[in-house]
């Protein structure tokens, strides 16, 4: 059994290693200009240099600060609207159609108008990220709130629970799985959009800008490294959220 697992792991490494070998051979024989495909050792050396120089951490910090702000605003607003729509069908009928109409616009389509209204400011970028986090959070919270079983509602009625208590004891716990996955989806959306914001708003600072500048100067090695770092951080965020989800939902597996 264990041997099988090791074999599977090794197989997973085969293709990346083969690609690395092909990459190395191509650059060694200069079949492709180093401008478009720098040798692996150059990329590794640049990576070490960047990490030692430390500017990358400043950019990283800037991106993460922006994501954190936009994400928090977005999921808070999404949680409030989602819960309100889930609890009251009047609110759902009031806000639902407008929400669904606005949601049809691809998120990047809001960029020009955000730039017009707020200029090339941090605020514009944060609103943009918040909007991206807002949609999935609202939808997931709303869905979650509506998943409450009828029996539970009846129990609550028998015990004459008031609304806040009903919300706190029944609705939110049963909506929790859906809310948590909403948070996770919102987070990965926000992480993508911060890179987008830094690229499309064309402002200084952040990993997206670092990437864009490297593109303009055709520094392929830096482009590779930033893609790697951006992917890695997205992965870590997602993974941490999943662990958190499992922790918070442990009580569910017992029944």
């Amino acid at each position, binding site marked *: 059994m264990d041997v099988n697992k090791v074999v*599977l792991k090794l197989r997973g490494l085969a293709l*990346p290693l083969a690609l690395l070998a092909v990459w190395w051979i191509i650059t060694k024989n200069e079949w492709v200009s180093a401008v478009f495909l720098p040798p692996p050792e150059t990329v590794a050396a640049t990576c070490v240099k960047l990490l030692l120089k430390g500017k990358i951490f400043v950019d990283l910090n800037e991106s993460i600060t922006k994501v954190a702000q936009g994400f928090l605003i977005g999921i808070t607003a999404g949680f409030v609207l989602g819960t309100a729509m889930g609890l009251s069908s009047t609110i759902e009928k*009031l806000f639902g159609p407008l929400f669904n109409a606005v949601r049809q*616009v691809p998120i990047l*389509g809001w960029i*020009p108008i955000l730039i*017009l209204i707020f200029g090339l400011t941090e605020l514009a970028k944060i609103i943009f990220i918040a909007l991206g986090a807002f949609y999935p959070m609202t939808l997931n919270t709303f869905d979650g709130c509506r998943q409450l079983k009828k029996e539970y509602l009846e129990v609550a009625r028998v015990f004459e629970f008031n609304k806040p208590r009903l919300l706190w004891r029944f609705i939110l716990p049963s909506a929790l799985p859906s809310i948590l996955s909403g948070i996770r989806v919102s987070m990965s959306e926000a992480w993508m959009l911060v890179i987008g914001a830094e*690229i*499309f708003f064309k402002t200084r600072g952040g990993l997206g800008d670092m990437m864009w500048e490297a593109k303009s100067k055709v520094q392929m090695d830096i482009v590779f490294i930033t893609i790697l770092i951006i992917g*890695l951080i997205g992965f870590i965020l997602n993974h941490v959220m999943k662990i958190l989800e499992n922790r918070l939902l442990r009580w569910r597996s017992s029944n």
Partner: protein
Amino acid sequence: MKKVITLILGLVLPVLILIGMEVVARFELTTSQLFVEPKVIFETLVDLIKGDELFINLGISTLRVFIGFVLGAAAGLFFGTVMGISRTFESYVGPIFNALRQVPVLAWIPLFIIWVGIDEGFKITFIAVTAFFPMALNTCEGVKGVSKSHLEVGAVLEINRFKQLSTIIIPASLPAIFTGLRLVLSITWMAVVGAELVASSEGIGYMMYRARQQLQVDTLLVCILAVGLTGYVMNILLEQIEHYFLRWRKVAG
């Protein structure tokens, strides 16, 4: 009666917003040139519908989405199916696929611009790549989810691999495939706007970019409306296709 009330409630907020804008316009509460009266927006809407510009740009973007969508979704469908059927293939390719999938799609833009340039090829490549990953993932999961008992029936009847694929695996994973297609449609529609905002001289994204530079808020709003509406219509079309292909499910369920 209930439907009418629902409809009216849904219109309350949009109407309030319009009234608010009209009030601001009537009493001249702002001097900002960014503010436009509802009347002006409506006039621009009528003008743009009468003219060609909006439809030409929309058509160009739609064509790009279509080409990228077909290429990316076809590749994703093929790749996902093979990965779902063959454990060996998955053990070799799965890890690198999952690693690449972690990269947020917008982060590929600089790489593609250097490798492919900023022409049509770049837009199509970018759109196709954004389509590929979710499509492959959904297909793979759909294929893996095919019920064992169905496959066993196939084994008993001794059908060959090709027939197994066409009569059991693909029909059974169609729901997952359509979920993937719908997801891909909305992602590619976003990707085309992104690609056109970055580098283009035509298309709806470019029209928005130019409207922003010329401070034409009314044109910009009409473009946003057009983009949203087109996406919505494409989604409905896809849903109809899905209903058609999955009509056997209703009978079974």
